[in-house]
């Protein structure tokens, strides 16, 4: 970092950081045992929430100047926000982190992978759902055409970091572009009378790479008695941008989504990705300095709900649900748990399935190391965290690891692949498991087809 860069960063910190929020930290240290990087670095205060807040404040106060080590501390944070629920002072660490990253990345030169990801994906692809389809379509082509086999055989993938190499193997097969496009946007409840009208936030990654999980979500909502609207103008939630210091982009995404969902009158806005949901509920904070938008944002935020939460509210778990006998464990989505404080509902749903023997894994609430693009830009720490996670998962003897967020799902798949256990273990999104459990009991296979016809009608 040269002197000019340091000055710019310091100034950016003074302009960007919420000083009152920094002052709210009493340095009691109650956050320390909740922080995965504090634990994995062998209790290094630099990599703890309390330490990071002290660094941020130190930069604002001018007690220290920006340095590589300071930046490393901020970069190393997973942004899992496990420190928030345990903070008696109620410090909103996630927001401080966003501000700090914003301040650093306004001026800091970025590494090549960071630049590539942020430049290409954040600015040019995630915001545009048709381009998302295009890119994931390329991936689909890669997978179907034999190029994947070729790449794996030639060892081209060895040029990439280890986590990316393994990740490439576990990516789900992407549906064809035509399948992604040709889907209904307004659906009626199935079998039950209508209980609620909801809008579905489909997400960018979820609606392409994990399209089947999105379809399963919609179907579960139908079975639970919801009328569903899927607004066509919605965009990526902006979380990946927001968490990496691209705040302007994030605000743009937020406005587009607020507008898109204002056009329908619904009881709830349903998300099936913990990471997106936690960002959606913070839109009011994101737009707090914009008087017109902040009111609209508040209305939007109040309606956001995770799929597991509405299923419990509508007593979905009281219907008969059944799966083959198996041990199941659950990996919390950090943002679902710490951002939306939703963690009992997924467990309650899983425990209500006949045949499922639910075993809680140790530290299920601790981040898996996926954390947005963390597993790519902080590959080493991410894999260290994942190793611990897989050890805990294996101790439960579970056949199925359930998650509630696409990033966690990929990371769990990656973990299983890395441990070479893909024959005895699988990772699934909770809605896929629930749909299977529901249809095993309630839908004969031919009825399933009828339902599908009905949906598309």
């Amino acid at each position, binding site marked *: 970092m040269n002197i000019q860069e340091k000055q710019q960063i310091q100034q950016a910190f003074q302009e960007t950081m919420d000083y009152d929020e920094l002052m709210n930290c009493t340095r009691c240290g109650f956050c320390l045992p909740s922080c995965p990087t504090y634990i994995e670095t062998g209790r290094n205060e*630099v990599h703890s929430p*309390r330490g990071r807040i002290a660094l941020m404040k130190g930069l604002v106060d001018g007690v220290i*100047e920006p340095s590589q*080590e300071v930046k490393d501390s901020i970069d190393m944070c997973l942004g899992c926000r496990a420190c928030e629920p345990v903070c*008696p002072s109620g410090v909103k660490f996630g927001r401080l982190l966003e501000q700090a990253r914003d301040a650093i990345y306004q001026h800091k030169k970025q590494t090549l992978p960071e630049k590539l990801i942020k430049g290409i994906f954040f600015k040019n692809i995630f915001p545009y759902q048709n381009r998302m389809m295009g890119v994931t379509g390329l991936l689909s082509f890669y997978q179907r055409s034999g190029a994947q086999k070729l790449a794996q055989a030639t060892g081209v993938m060895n040029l990439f970091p280890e986590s990316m190499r393994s990740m490439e193997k576990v990516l789900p097969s992407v549906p064809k572009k035509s399948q992604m496009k040709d889907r209904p946007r307004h659906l009626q409840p199935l079998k039950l009378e209508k209980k609620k009208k909801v809008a579905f936030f489909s997400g960018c990654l979820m609606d392409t790479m994990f399209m089947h999980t999105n379809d399963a979500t919609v179907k579960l909502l139908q079975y639970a008695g919801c009328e569903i609207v899927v607004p066509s103008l919605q965009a990526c939630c902006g979380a990946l941008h927001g968490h990496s210091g691209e705040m302007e982009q994030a605000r743009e995404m937020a406005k587009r989504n607020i507008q898109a969902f204002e056009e329908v009158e619904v009881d709830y806005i349903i998300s099936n990705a913990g990471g997106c949901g936690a960002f959606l509920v913070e839109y009011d904070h994101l737009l707090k300095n914009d008087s017109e938008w902040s009111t609209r944002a508040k209305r939007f935020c109040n309606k956001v709900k995770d799929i597991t939460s509405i299923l419990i509210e509508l007593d979905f778990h009281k219907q008969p649900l059944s799966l083959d006998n198996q041990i199941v464990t659950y990996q919390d989505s950090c943002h679902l748990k710490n951002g939306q404080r939703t963690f009992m509902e997924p467990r309650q749903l899983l425990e209500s399935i006949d045949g499922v023997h639910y075993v809680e894994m140790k530290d299920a609430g601790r981040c898996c190391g996926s954390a947005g693009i963390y597993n790519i830009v902080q590959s080493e720490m991410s894999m260290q965290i994942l190793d611990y996670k897989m050890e805990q998962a294996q101790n439960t003897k579970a056949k199925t690891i359930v998650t509630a967020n696409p990033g966690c799902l990929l990371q769990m798949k990656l973990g299983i692949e890395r441990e070479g256990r893909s024959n005895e273990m699988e990772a699934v999104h909770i809605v896929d498991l629930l749909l299977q459990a529901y249809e095993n009991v309630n839908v004969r296979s031919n009825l399933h087809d009828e339902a599908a016809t009905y949906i598309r009608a």
Partner: protein
Amino acid sequence: MLHSEVKGKLLAIVGAENVEDNNASLLAYSYDSTARFQALPDAMVAPRNTEEVAGVVKVCNEHKIPIVPRGSGTNLCAGTTPTKGGIVLIFKHMNHILEIDQENLTMTVEPGVYTKDILNAAIDVGLFYPPDPGSMHISQIGGNISENSGGLRGLKYGVTRDYVLGLEIVLPNGEVIQTGGKLAKDVAGYDLTRLYIGAEGTLGVITKAILKLIPQPETKKTMLALYEDLEAAAETVSAIIANRIIPATLEFLDQATVQVVEDFAEIGLPVEAKAVLLIEQDGPPEVVDRDMDKIEELCKDNRAFDVQVAKTVEEAEQLTAARRSALSALSRLKPTTILEDATVPRSEIAKMVKAIGEIAEKYQLNICTFGHAGDGNLHPTCLTDARDEAEIELVEKAFEEIFQQAVALGGTITGEHGVGMMKLPYLHLKAGEHGIEAMRSIKQAIDPNGIMNPGKMIEPKGRQRMVVEHQ
């Protein structure tokens, strides 16, 4: 900055990965939990065993470099904040439970073990380690011993001091000594174990401890008693003790504290009460039942408008956990919380609570009070803003008066947090000038170069009071 020669020596002892002097590390070890105190050290050093600690101490003694031993930095008297550079010594590698001796009922530990892990390890074999400071899930035993930490169970079970049988200590000259042992009785010479308990790291570095364990109580019951006014609650405390009942826990919270704790914990605490007592009794079931019935009666006799007994273990644990969060939760109200731990004989609790109220009124300050009413240890906590210098001045005046009041009632300026830098100016109120002189002689004899945690507890003779870099 450390001289390169010194740094080289330290690196040779603990390895390159265990010495950090980049600016992020220096800042991250520049504070503890005490508001308004912060100063950068020159390096952070993390030795891996007693030999390395001894080596580091020798080097520092030779070059007169200050050493600040630090656990998890949960200290509340600026006892683990650097004052004038030097090294912060941390114990992240020395964090093992070495032995649980079920014949002698002892546990031997390294200083970096979390207090909560000690309790859990004891419980696993049907034993009990009672000291439970509010931060026990993150505080380290080395720090607990050096501060002689108290906790919620102090009334019945005593404090950390009552559970330390022996220590391994690295003296400021680098020599290693063993004190005490797995012994119930030991009068061989001065009781150095006791001297080092609560010495705040000013006399050497604790590298090992033998702790006393006791049988685990069979059962436990928890109740809340709610009051319309503070004094009725304080009188109940005296009544319980006067009736020859020693509860395991007897905590007091005022309305403001209950309110913020409830905001954080959301467990349905009675925010309508002006004062709340959290009472726990443990022991054989018949004794617990008998005591709790009697306590309930005493609460009602002393104008409690409601008494609620926790129905399940979870409910009881929620209540004590909520109480532990009181200090940090209070900080939700204002940016800065300054907490004290003035302590009086428990018979004087009502007077002390009243005096704190009057002092707060006099200086127009927002002071919430909670604490271990059963052992006379109160935590008047002032909610303020470190940026408001005029108010901070009033806060200091108010606390000085609170200390004077406590001492006048036969109490002390600090019951369990220690003197550190924060209460150094007030130590004379309790210890007297001759008392301080005796302490100073001990310090001078053991640490002639004044390298161990300088600027804490007492000042060397003739030196001006340390100017502390305020945050």
